């Protein structure tokens, strides 16, 4: 037996290829959408991986530091460091803001990293693609390549200028913003620094308060003002555990003894990957559903039209004794062929366009496989309309009136 579907496609290949191409672009968009979602998850994971932390210690009862604001005193890390099982602990600040570079600015996540031996403290970029780590306590920065900054560039964060001494790759926030690492002290200033007027006004208010400004207690006013203008907050403490330590146990003891909120890697992943991007994931899910419906409608319409054009031939085929299932299979095969052409075009389009997108688009092979299977299922369903019509064709129609 020859393949009727194959012959028909061969005969009308122009129509098939053009429709397949159009369908392919739609499938390409669908794959990119899935890739955007995977990119979000992957960015979240990269953020956690690159922090080098096993535990995150944050302000009590917050989902910090990535999903909610969190503020801790910067000396708590010492007591955490003293807990059994803790190998290293370091303060860290995160602040997503506009970083100026000359006339332009880029959105970046500014990470304040605690001084120490480079690489030994959690929070430091685990590897550089160029340059060196920060060695001075002030005004040096390591920037991610996605920020568009280059080695030796000068950038401005709030009022201070920094020299880019090192470059990283794929160091991004869960929102996909490139990271810029600066020394912790600078970052604390950037986060909590007040402008001169505000400092002056705050000083005036303190002076006007009789509780602080007591003629009988010299030095009190100065001490109060000094404590107001230095800031000693960080967003979180990143903790690396000694080998073979169970994160849950250490986390539990820090929670109990220090009355802080502690997240393990698994819990943090749940926050960053599940909670933080939940709305985006739903949004993308909605798009996928709509795109699937549009694909189904297109395939159904095209296969229906192609079948409509063949009503005469189908009546003749039935008259000369072709089985219904042979005819149904012919139509379904054409729908599957259309879906396959579309999928191949879509996959190629997605693969070539993914790197052009500003945020990370991660095309997972299993998404492609799932997409292909979904496409085949959609094509089968979509061909049912045409098959129904073809099966209703009366062989007597071939004989005519």
């Amino acid at each position, binding site marked *: *037996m*020859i393949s*009727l579907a194959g*012959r*028909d496609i*061969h*005969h*009308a290949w122009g129509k098939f290829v053009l429709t397949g191409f159009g369908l392919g672009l739609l499938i390409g968009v669908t794959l990119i959408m899935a890739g955007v979602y995977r990119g979000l998850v992957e960015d979240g994971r990269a953020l956690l991986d690159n922090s080098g932390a096993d535990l995150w210690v944050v302000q009590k009862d917050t989902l910090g530091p990535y999903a909610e604001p969190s503020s801790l005193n910067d000396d708590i890390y010492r007591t955490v460091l003293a807990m059994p099982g803790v190998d290293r602990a370091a303060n860290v600040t995160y602040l997503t803001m506009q970083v100026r570079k000359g006339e332009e600015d880029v959105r970046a996540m500014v990470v304040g990293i605690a001084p120490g031996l480079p690489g030994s403290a959690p929070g430091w970029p685990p590897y550089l693609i160029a340059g060196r780590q920060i060695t001075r306590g002030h005004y040096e920065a390591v920037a991610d390549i996605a920020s568009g900054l280059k080695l030796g560039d000068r950038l401005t964060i709030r009022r201070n200028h920094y020299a880019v001494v090192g470059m990283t790759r794929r160091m991004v926030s869960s929102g996909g913003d490139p990271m810029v690492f600066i020394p912790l002290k600078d970052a604390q200033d950037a986060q909590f620094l007040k402008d001169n007027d505000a400092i002056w006004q705050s000083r005036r208010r303190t002076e006007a308060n009789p509780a602080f400004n007591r003629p009988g207690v010299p030095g009190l006013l100065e001490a109060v003002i000094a404590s107001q203008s230095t800031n000693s907050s960080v967003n979180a403490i990143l903790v690396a555990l000694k080998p073979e330590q169970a994160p849950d146990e250490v986390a539990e003891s820090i929670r109990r003894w220090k009355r802080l909120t502690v997240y393990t890697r698994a819990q943090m992943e749940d926050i960053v990957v599940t909670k933080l991007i939940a709305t985006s994931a739903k949004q993308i899910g909605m798009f996928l559903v709509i795109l699937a419906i549009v694909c189904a409608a297109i395939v159904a319409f095209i296969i229906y039209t192609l079948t409509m054009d063949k009503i*005469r*031939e189908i009546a*003749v*085929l*039935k*008259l*000369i*004794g*072709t*089985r219904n299932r*042979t005819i149904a299979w012919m139509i379904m095969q054409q729908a599957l062929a259309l879906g396959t052409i579309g999928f191949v075009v879509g996959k190629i389009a997605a693969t070539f366009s993914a790197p052009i997108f500003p945020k990370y688009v991660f095309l997972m092979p299993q998404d492609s496989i799932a997409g292909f299977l979904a496409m085949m299922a959609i094509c089968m369903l979509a061909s049912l309309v045409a098959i129904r019509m073809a099966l209703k064709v*009366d*062989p*007597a129609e*071939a*004989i*005519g*009136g």
Partner: protein
Amino acid sequence: MSKGIRIEGLKKRYGTGDTAVDALKGVDMQVEPGEVVGLIGPSGSGKSTLLKCLGAVIDPTAGRMVLGNEVIYDNGWKVRDLRALRRDKIGFVFQAPYLIPFLDVTDNVALIPMLAHASNKEARSKALELLAALDVQHRAKAMPSQLSGGEQQRVAIARGLVNRPPVILADEPTAPLDSERAMGVIRILNEMARKFETAIIVVTHDEKIIPTFKRIYHIRDGVTHEEAGEGKGIE
């Protein structure tokens, strides 16, 4: 036992109740193998209805139909697999050739034995044999759209004959052709009837070919009358 096709008292009623139409009111007909008979009648007389009953695509309301030695219909009873019957026992030739546009000439003809589970090779060699008999073998690789009207009609006849059915039903096979080509088709049908021992029934309005039949069934108001034809114009 006679071969060919025989119908007795065939009736067909469309619809029910007040709107019922009695298209056939008791038709008798007998066509022997090797014979080409004409079926003529005015518009609305029941020609197409009769052809559809003979072609096993609509069921008669009453009457008997025997094809070769096989009873097809007998007053409400019918054979189970009409589809296989059409494939194996009946050849169709239409007014328009209705070739499958996406198959080449050979496969248009070979499709019929393929549907009856012949191997591709066997089916194509049968097809080529028929195409040669109808003198279109030189167009075997062409697509239907590349053929002239007459060539298409000959391919359609080859398709009707390829399974060597005992009966061929031809519905206005000469309508789109000029008189020379029409006579050509009739000559071929007569040759094929003789060569393959086929009973051929030709429904026609075509004044040019009516004198060629030796026997004609006249149908009027759902009843047939047999007449002797002139039987001329074919050697």
